[in-house]
């Protein structure tokens, strides 16, 4: 790893949330909010990690795991209760204005563009908000317009854009001031397959240009397609930090063998694998290659059945992560 752009150590954040179900009905909501009983929830529990300049890191975890709390602290919106956090030599919340001038943030669910204005006018406003030098701004803007292929969209009011078109414009808007660090929060949410692939392609190309990127998402395909490194957070702690391949190896080694038969599934016999499903002409098996080598199981299945085709896949990454979370819950129980 090159010298770290982000250094986080022992980061802790607790929230007081209303316990809910206070039983009172009627009355002012303000008053109820004030008298509601509170309980303390630990959103981040001594989280530590380092991210080097130029890395593209996937940051995943279930809802409420502490993902957005981490991102908010790194971007200077939120002040932690304890711990150290330095981004490019600055403590984000102490020097908010200087810090946010060097980061870009894209929220998949929220627009940063002005809804009623043509895209280009939002860009021009951002130029003035970020106090960009006109010549440098024009250069960056034109590069981004080409990279993201948004030239035909510039004169269109944002509200008339499709989600995929808007997302490309959002990416451009987040990069106009040439941030060193880019946060992408669910950038592919709601996109159709074509738009999703286009956005992924753009993220990959941006990263090639040296922008350090943190991608938070529920779409694990995004992570698998894009991120050499993945951080998994659960219940406020980092559960895993490494490559997707290591994530697979660490959680379990099981693979999925899908078998297509020449005839309807009647009786399918195997002693060395678990049958996940068997319907029509297709049987799906799960096996552990450390216990039965892949050539052996193929041989066995092909010998005992009338096989037309078969293929092997790793476990879907969603399964792996779900398993990681379940393990965590077992530990906590």
């Amino acid at each position, binding site marked *: 790893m090159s010298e770290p752009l982000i250094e986080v150590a022992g980061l802790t954040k607790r929230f007081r949330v209303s316990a809910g179900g206070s039983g009172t009905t009627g009355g002012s909501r303000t008053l109820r909010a004030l008298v509601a009983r509170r309980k303390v929830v630990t959103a981040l529990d001594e989280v530590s990690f380092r991210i080097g300049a130029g890395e593209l890191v996937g940051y995943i975890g279930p809802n409420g795991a502490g993902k957005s709390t981490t991102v*908010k602290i790194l971007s200077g*919106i939120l002040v932690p209760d304890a711990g150290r956090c330095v981004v490019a030599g600055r403590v984000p919340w102490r020097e908010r*204005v200087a810090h946010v001038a060097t980061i870009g943030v894209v929220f998949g669910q929220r627009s940063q563009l002005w809804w009623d204005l043509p895209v280009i006018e939002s860009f021009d406003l951002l130029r*003035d908000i970020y*106090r960009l030098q*006109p010549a440098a701004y024009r250069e*960056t803007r034109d590069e981004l317009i080409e990279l993201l292929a948004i030239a035909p969209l510039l004169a269109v009011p944002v509200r008339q854009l499709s989600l995929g078109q808007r997302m490309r414009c959002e990416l451009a808007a987040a990069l106009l001031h040439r941030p060193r660090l880019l946060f992408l929060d669910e950038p592919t949410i709601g996109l159709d397959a074509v738009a999703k692939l286009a956005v992924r392609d753009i993220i990959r190309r941006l990263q090639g*240009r040296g922008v350090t990127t943190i991608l938070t998402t529920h779409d694990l395909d995004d992570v698998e397609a894009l991120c050499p490194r993945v951080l998994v957070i659960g219940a406020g702690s980092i559960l895993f930090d490494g490559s997707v391949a290591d994530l697979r190896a660490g959680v379990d080694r099981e693979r999925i063998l899908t078998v297509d038969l020449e005839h309807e599934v009647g009786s399918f016999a195997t002693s060395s694998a678990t049958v996940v499903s068997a319907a029509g002409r297709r049987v799906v098996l799960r096996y552990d290659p450390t216990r039965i080598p892949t050539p052996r199981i193929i041989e066995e299945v092909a010998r005992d059945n009338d096989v037309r085709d078969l293929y092997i896949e790793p476990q879907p990454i969603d399964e792996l992560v779900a398993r990681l979370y379940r393990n965590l819950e077992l530990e906590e129980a």
Partner: protein
Amino acid sequence: MAASRGTLRTVPMASGAVWLYLRFAATHFRAQMQYPGALALQIIGSALFTAIEFAGVWALLNRFGNVRGWELAEVAVLYGLVMVGFSAAEATGRGFDTFHRQVRGGGFDRVLLRPRHTVLQVAGADFAFHRAGRWLHGAAILVWGLCNAGIAWNPARVILLAETIAGVTVLFLGVFVAVAAVTFWTVQSLELFAIVSNGSVDAGSYPATVYRRFMRHFLFYLVPIGTVTYFPVAALLGRPDPLGTPPWFGWIAPAAAPLFLAAALLLWRLGTRHYSSTGS
């Protein structure tokens, strides 16, 4: 696009806060002008609304002749001042007036993610140009009142009038900022606090002497709309104050407005700190 070196080259000319605020205003104006018909209707509507309100004042005074010795023209001066100040504050500080909606949608996160002062960004987030209708109508009532209240004009009184108009506008800006700041603690509900902004409009439209002690103290000390309207207008009209303040007090009373705005901005700062520690 090469990797950024993280240095931000600034442009002094384009960096002024006022300049950015005007950019926001111009942008909003153009966006609202996309529907010129709707904007025109809103302007007429807001003027009509004020007209109906003033008809109430007129009816009241027509029935009773005066309130605590204040004739219709004199009350019109108060009413016109409050309307002019309130609508100017509404038009320019609209972002604070609608701030609760921004907070709820997580919009304040976006404000914090941009390298400018939060007050500047929130003020520039929304503009109510259609309040021009109310402003014009308020100005008309004010001018009518000033012409018919028998004011002995001199240069000092002209300055006092300008000072008072500025004071009322600044005071209402302060009210919007204060009410918005409270949103940081009570994201859910605002009914309670809307009373403060709308209530001060009504309360400021009549001479403070009509109110009972408690209410009067509220309007003099807490949300000092009474202070910035009643005393200067009494001085403008050359009326002795039955409450016993010296005549020169009317000349310094509008200073309560910037003080109130400063307090509101302090509350705003506390609010943003609170937001940063709770994230909601």
